């Protein structure tokens, strides 16, 4: 389970209102939510982000509401995975349940710049900043059952496949 993409950097305490403002919560359609992804943190983000790109954020990413619209919007915008110093707990759970892989890494944020390309190996458990001689960063590998859940596209799809 590997992800390669350009880095988009965000700071600490990016809340779910910044990820997907409540004024758009009268729908749960992923394609509409994607248009407004990260709108109140970086208004142009949804237009700039390309499929496979990676969000690198500070601590407590996804704090605030329990809205699953937040990981849905990020995933639908094309983001392949998120790396943050830490995640708010409901977001952490929701991201995996939506099939959006996320990783905790304390050191990457200070050592990577926006626009750099990184490769995340979710099985072996490390992150490499491409075209640089920075040492790889250790992350907790995603356990096999969780990889399967992500490949299936989230918890419910995973459960219905298993019957």
């Amino acid at each position, binding site marked *: 389970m590997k992800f390669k993409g350009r880095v988009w950097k965000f700071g600490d305490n990016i809340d779910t209102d910044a990820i997907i403002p409540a004024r758009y*919560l009268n729908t749960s359609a992923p394609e509409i939510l994607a248009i407004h992804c990260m709108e109140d943190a970086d208004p142009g983000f949804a237009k700039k982000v390309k499929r496979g790109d990676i969000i690198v954020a500070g601590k*407590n990413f996804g704090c605030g*509401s329990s*809205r*699953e619209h937040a990981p849905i919007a990020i995933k639908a915008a094309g983001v392949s995975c998120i790396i943050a110093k830490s995640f708010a707990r409901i977001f952490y*759970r929701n991201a995996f349940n939506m099939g959006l892989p996320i990783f905790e890494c304390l050191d990457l944020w200070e050592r990577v710049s926006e626009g750099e390309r990184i490769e995340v190996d979710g099985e072996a458990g490390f992150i490499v900043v491409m075209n640089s001689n920075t040492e790889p960063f250790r992350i907790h590998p995603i356990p096999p059952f969780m990889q399967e859940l992500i490949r299936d596209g989230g918890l*419910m799809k995973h459960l219905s496949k298993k019957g």
Partner: protein
Amino acid sequence: MGMTITEKILLQHTDIGEIHPGMLINARVDIALGNDVTAPIAIEEFKKAGGKQVFDRHRVVLIPDHFTPNKDIASAQQCKILRNFAKEQEITHYYEIGEVGIEHALLPEQGIVLPGDLVIGADSHTCTYGALGAFATGIGSTDLAGAMMTGEAWFKVPETMKVIFYGHPGKWVSGKDLILHLIGLIGVDGALYRAMEFTGETVEKLGMADRFAIANMVIEAGAKNGIFIPDEMTKEYVKSRAKRPYTFYSSDPDAAYSEVMEIDAGKIEPQVAFPHLPSNVKGISKVGDVKIDQVVIGSCTNGRIEDLRVAAGILKGRRVAPYVRLIIIPATQEIYRTALREGLFEIFLDARAVISPPTCGPCLGGYMGILADGERAVATTNRNFVGRMGHPGSEVYLANPSVAAASAILGRIAGPDEL
């Protein structure tokens, strides 16, 4: 080794012999809650996964409170999904307009959640029910879908942080101020993944509305749940409301805590959380001259009758400052009726306030009080993130009802002592 109240409640809802922090458990849920924003996704997932019948129609609770009375066509569609599902599944606790209220005020008021319960809700402020001595935590729509099917959910048993409040709080210091002060001390991730247990002589004397306000905002410190040890006050509150048996748990004297904090409530003044984080707090004396455009008194944090009485006490015989809007939102129909009967509406109307039907509305920037670019609001709500109440260029200042009412009169952030 002894156990905390959180550990005891979780253990009681499993078939295993013992639990300890860090352990992953599967547990039975007593109540699974969704609202008009989160339940439509859960219902869709439930159907897609082949769900035919919810695990227990008396224990799945559906509350259309966020964008009701329907704010627009899209919201009306979402509410219709809830209503149709409630009809089809014969859900006992579905509340239509005219009965509905803000979920976290309504469920305790109607005796739907009780001490000792394990409650999950697809709403982050589900943690409010910890005030009753229940384990209650927010989850996403998918977890709700799973629980609607199976009646179970998985949890990582949290470590517990104990917060002891002692001392006698000042006249205008409420539960809201205690929790804002605490969030200011530990930060918005200060209790990440953990349970927060509130105790001490100050807490023992707090009324239920103050306890609800405290438990409500533990999520603003990243906590999984907040909890109070149920006592005589709790018994008084639930005895006339409960329609099923309930259990009072308490923590053992030798229970293990990851951290213990002691806070002198006598030294806390009314708190104001400045934009754009609930942890960005200042005492009212250090606020300075902050002009405001709007005041909102309501929400699952501070929309209870006790909050409205405090606001009315300050607004009585006074008028809202020119060009300032005061919006008052009783959290449930029962609160609305009580406020009407007690004459509070006369006071509010004389003061030039508008009274809204129960709704989450402006708290999350839905409707019924949206801010324009550059506008500032004092709100008794729980979040002040960028764009929370409207335009991304607007600002929300969080405070208790007495500060909110006094600010409405003076047109700037102020405490009641300035009147």
